């Protein structure tokens, strides 16, 4: 035992992976692969080895290396990518997903030490962005990217730069508005205190001065900070919609006008303190509602996943062509790890295409010459040549984005509770206000007006407007802690309304990383050794899985070895001849009924059984099944119905499972459910689910690494949290209940205030106390209740 400990694998100095071979050693430091070693050499040549002293193993594994940035010499593409350019300076922002620790930060800000043409480089850690200013006469963009690549920080270059767009700050200056409102609120409070405590007869001149000063402070609050409410209310009125901004704007306007009249004409204190406090708290509510995830994008489509350019062969010359200029009939070269950008016919080479981004299936598919390969696949292995048969946007997969589901706004029948209520609220409020005006008017016109304005002031739905943002912000942070990222706060309400859940199979309910390989049949030690020796020569993923399964065995010399693409391996080792591969290879027949991906073994004309590859279902699939009475569950899979029987334990009947679904038919299925009045949640992971995710009322993309690609959706879920889905759904319902409760609380406050207001004798002091007290009650109630609900659902 101790002996095995002592030959414990060393971990790579750069990336921390186990070193399989002792071949890569520099300066007594071990590396797992050539890529990691070369990064270290580049860094040590530039004297930047401090990189390794801030953190252990800060690098990313570099086993797979291929650098091709030729396309960065095309002026069209360069102009799309850069932020700014003049005679000799270019500024560009890169998105680098690998930025994760202080070493990354340190190294990337030392770029100017490696190359003096780089003037300046700055990292934004949360956004994982690097801003570089460099001299493009001395260093081309391609060289810069290659330099980054050489030190292990490959930027993601995409023409549809969603991350960059998403991170441009919003132009509404909300923070500045809050600052102004807060500043004025504080000063007005200070100047109002003397009035509350009583000003003696000798100091009456101060009273007028304080009142006027308050009016001056109220001006920027109404006309700068609170102006957005007037704009919004007016725009909604124009489309005949009474949203919550209408009573708010009305409240602000009435508060201001009444204060001006009170102070200037009546020499009364006015309501400026209430006014400033109201706007300040409302803006705070807006601010907490705004949650940004810098590292996640919810808007990605195929363009952010497809390459920027592809190499086209014309007259035997390879030239990078931007994807938008790719035409049918052109001949393209796709190398290892490159993505096939359009539907194309395979002309040359052995295609082994990994469709994991499209379907979630992680085992690459063999394609034969002349076969059409759909766009979105990633070639693994040697370079292949293809002839484009459809343009990029018209391909089998990408034409999905031409569907109207992508062009129209998300359906508006999902009105939030707030929107529904505010309509009635406004009507009732106006009725009470005019009612009290008419009641007093015959006796005392002044008192009638006072009552009218007082009603509008007191009933201004400040607490109501705050209850939703604060509850939702608390809910969002709880989901966030559980690795479930929602696009915005409305998603929570949509989630509470869901009654139907549709799931994709591969990659969604199955775990894409851990495929299970099982041996059906008996193998002797020598047979295992034979199979191992044959399979180690193949780079096919199934061969590799078999080798992993058999473990390290001594390798036997091969006398003959041939790999037949799409079929398997023919080998001759010692006196034995081996056939390892598909049923077609071994029995010369293809059995459609055979329901698993399997590798069959024939040694010396004797059939010994097969290795079956099975998917592991994600942990917690049983919990999901238990949702069945409350939620309708459906499965939509692009695959054959191989696993139908296996899946019956999760889905009660076969009617709930639909196989052989194309991306378009997934979308149509969701729509047909919606037409029946169901509120549908779609859970998917690949580009082929994009249409369904978009069409559904709530599209959830599931991913094992949130920095990786995930299709556009309303929410992104980390695969590890999949088992918590039932809790998430219940918690969303709890959240909506909390909003209802806080609505009741704020109504109670309104009623108390109204009972003063209708008499027309509302003192500024009552209003100034009532407004902050109700606000604080709502904020603390929603926050505490949300945390309590999360505890109950075991989400905290």
């Amino acid at each position, binding site marked *: 035992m101790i002996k095995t400990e002592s030959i414990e694998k060393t971990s790579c100095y750069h990336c921390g992976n186990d070193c399989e071979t002792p071949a890569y050693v520099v*300066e007594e430091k071990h590396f797992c692969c050539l890529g990691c070693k070369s990064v270290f050499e580049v860094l*040590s040549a530039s*004297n930047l*080895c*401090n990189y390794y002293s*801030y953190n252990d193993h800060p690098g990313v594994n570099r086993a797979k290396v291929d650098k091709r940035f030729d396309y960065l010499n095309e002026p069209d593409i360069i102009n799309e990518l850069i932020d700014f350019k003049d005679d000799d300076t270019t500024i560009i922002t890169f998105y680098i997903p690998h930025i994760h620790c*202080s070493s990354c*930060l*340190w190294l990337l*800000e030392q770029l100017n030490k490696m190359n003096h043409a780089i003037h300046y480089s700055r*990292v*934004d*850690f*949360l*956004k994982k962005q690097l801003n570089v200013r460099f001299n493009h006469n001395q260093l081309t963009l391609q060289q810069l990217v290659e330099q980054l690549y050489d030190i292990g920080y490959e930027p993601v270059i995409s023409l549809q730069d969603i991350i960059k767009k998403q991170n441009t*700050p919003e132009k509404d200056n909300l*923070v*500045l508005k809050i*600052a*102004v409102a807060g*500043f004025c609120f*504080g*000063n007005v409070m200070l*100047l109002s205190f003397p009035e509350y405590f009583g000003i003696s007869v000798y*100091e009456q001149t*101060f009273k007028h*001065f304080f009142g006027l*000063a308050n009016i001056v402070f109220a001006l920027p609050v109404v006309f700068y900070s609170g102006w957005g409410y007037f704009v919004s209310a007016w725009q909604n009125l124009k489309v005949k919609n009474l949203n919550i901004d209408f009573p708010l704007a009305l409240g602000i306007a009435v508060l201001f006008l009444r204060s001006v009249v009170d102070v200037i004409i009546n020499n009364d204190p006015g309501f400026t303190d209430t006014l400033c406090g109201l706007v300040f708290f409302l803006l705070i509510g807006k601010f907490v509602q705004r949650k940004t995830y810098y590292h996640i994008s919810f808007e990605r489509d195929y363009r952010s996943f497809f390459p920027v350019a592809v190499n086209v062969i014309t007259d035997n010359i390879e030239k990078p062509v931007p994807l938008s200029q790719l035409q049918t009939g052109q001949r393209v070269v796709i190398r290892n790890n490159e993505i096939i950008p359009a539907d194309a016919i395979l002309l040359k080479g052995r295609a082994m295409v990994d469709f994991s981004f499209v379907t979630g299936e992680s085992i690459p598919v063999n394609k034969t010459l002349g076969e059409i390969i759909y766009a979105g696949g990633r070639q693994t292995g040697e370079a292949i040549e293809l002839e484009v048969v459809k343009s990029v946007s018209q391909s089998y997969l990408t034409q999905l984005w031409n569907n109207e589901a992508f062009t129209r706004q998300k359906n508006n029948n999902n009105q939030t509770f707030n929107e529904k209520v505010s309509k009635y609220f406004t009507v009732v409020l106006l009725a009470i206000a005019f009612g009290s005006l008419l009641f007093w008017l015959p006796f005392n016109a002044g008192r009638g007006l006072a009552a009218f304005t007082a009603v509008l002031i007191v009933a201004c739905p400040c607490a109501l407007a705050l209850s939703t943002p604060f509850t939702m912000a608390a809910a969002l942070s709880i989901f966030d802690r559980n690795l479930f990222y929602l696009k915005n706060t409305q998603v929570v309400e949509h989630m509470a309304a869901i009654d139907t859940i549709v799931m994709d199979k591969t990659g969604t309910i199955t775990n894409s990383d851990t495929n299970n390989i099982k041996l059906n049949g008996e193998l002797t030690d020598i047979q295992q050794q034979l199979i191992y020796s044959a399979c180690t020569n193949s780079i096919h993923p199934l061969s590799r899985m078999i080798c992993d399964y058999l473990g390290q065995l001594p390798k036997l010399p091969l006398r003959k070895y041939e790999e037949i693409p799409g079929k398997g391996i023919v080998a001759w080792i010692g006196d034995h001849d081996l056939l390892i591969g598909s049923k077609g290879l071994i029995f010369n027949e293809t059995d459609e009924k055979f329901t698993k991906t399997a590798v069959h073994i024939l040694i010396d004309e004797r059939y010994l059984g097969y290795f079956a590859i099975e998917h592991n279902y994600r942990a917690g699939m049983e919990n999901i099944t238990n949702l069945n009475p409350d939620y309708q569950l459906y499965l939509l899979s692009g695959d054959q119905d191989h696993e139908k029987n296996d899946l019956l334990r999760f889905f009660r009947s076969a009617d709930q499972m639909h196989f052989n679904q194309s991306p378009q038919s997934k979308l149509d299925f969701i729509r047909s459910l919606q037409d029946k009045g169901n509120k549908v949640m779609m859970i998917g992971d690949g580009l082929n689910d994009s249409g369904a995710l978009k069409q559904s009322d709530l599209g959830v993309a599931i991913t094992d690494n949130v920095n990786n690609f995930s299709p556009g959706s309303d929410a992104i879920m980390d695969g590890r949290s999949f088992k918590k889905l039932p809790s998430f759904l219940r918690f969303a319902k709890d959240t909506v209940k909390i909003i209802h409760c806080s609505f009741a609380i704020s109504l109670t406050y309104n009623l108390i205030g109204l009972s003063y207001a209708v008499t027309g004798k509302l003192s500024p002091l009552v209003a100034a106390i009532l407004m902050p007290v109700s606000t604080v009650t709502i904020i603390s109630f929603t926050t505490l209740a949300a945390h309590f609900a999360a505890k109950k659902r075991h989400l905290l």
Partner: protein
Amino acid sequence: MSIIYFLIGCSILLALIFLGAFFWAQCSGQNDDLCTPSMRILLDDEDEDEPEPRK
């Protein structure tokens, strides 16, 4: 008691200066990235002349 006018004027002026400072900070992008500088400060400055002893 007229000194009150002067004092209130001073306090408002002072507060306005702070508000202006905040506006300046916000508009010049100082609050855009609140995370990275907190990490940057922990990284040591290197001596330019002396090569780091590699170990």
